[in-house]
């Protein structure tokens, strides 16, 4: 019971872990390549959610300094800044993966990993 109450306290972390698992599951089980990329994005987003929620402070304000407000009143700006970088990295990886999928579709006529494997096996035999 204590664990459940801890999980409810840390519900942001809990949900991001669940999303992480969903992302890994999608990435590794689906044979559709687009779905793999979607799983990859879910996984990345879950990590970003986790990272950003580390910096949250209850009742904190956005870290834009206003005169007369003490430093303790703002949320931690470092995770937000890092995740800005992380998001761009995820976008870049997604773009490159999509370009690979476009090219695979042009070459094999399908987006399904299993079908591509079948086509290759047929060609080799």
């Amino acid at each position, binding site marked *: 019971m204590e664990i459940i109450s801890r999980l409810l306290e840390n519900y942001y972390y809990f949900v991001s872990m669940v999303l992480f698992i969903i992302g890994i599951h999608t990435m590794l089980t689906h044979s559709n390549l687009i779905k793999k990329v979607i799983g990859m994005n879910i996984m990345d987003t879950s990590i970003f959610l986790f990272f950003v929620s580390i910096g949250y402070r209850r009742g904190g304000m*956005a870290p*834009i300094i206003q005169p007369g407000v003490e430093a303790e009143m703002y949320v931690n700006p470092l995770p937000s800044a890092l995740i*800005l970088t992380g998001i*761009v990295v995820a976008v870049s990886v997604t*773009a490159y993966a999509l*370009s690979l999928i*476009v090219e695979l579709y*042009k070459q094999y006529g399908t987006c399904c990993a299993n079908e591509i494997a079948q086509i290759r096996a047929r060609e080799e035999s």
Partner: protein
Amino acid sequence: MKDIVIRTVCRVIVPFVQVYGLYVIFHGHLSPGGGFAGGAILGSSMVLFALSFHLEAGAQKLGHETSSYLESGGGIWYILIGLLGLALGSNFLTNRAAGLGFGLPGQLFSGGMIFLLSLGIGVKVASTMFTLFYNLSEEEGSGGDHQ
């Protein structure tokens, strides 16, 4: 797409979106936003234009040549500003300690190289978004039009 409503609305809205993107880039050190957000807004305005008219129309506004110059230029700009700190006798990418800081905090022209770096990042992100969109959709679109 040949819808006149969309075309007219886009023709009106795109300049405003671009001005807003530039605003977000230039006010990155004062308000929420910065190079990435502003660059994404700028890039999406160009994507919107290309979507609502035609891919070729978008390419006429911002050609492949220009966008590849912009991509490289954004990165070179960033590194050169970093080397400027080095040339002034400080470390790589040093801002205020190298004497680059100017202006009072809270004003538009303050923060030394932050403003310049944001500009470089914004240009880079905008051109990247447009180039990626254009190249991924061009390959598909050119095949689809003839069928």
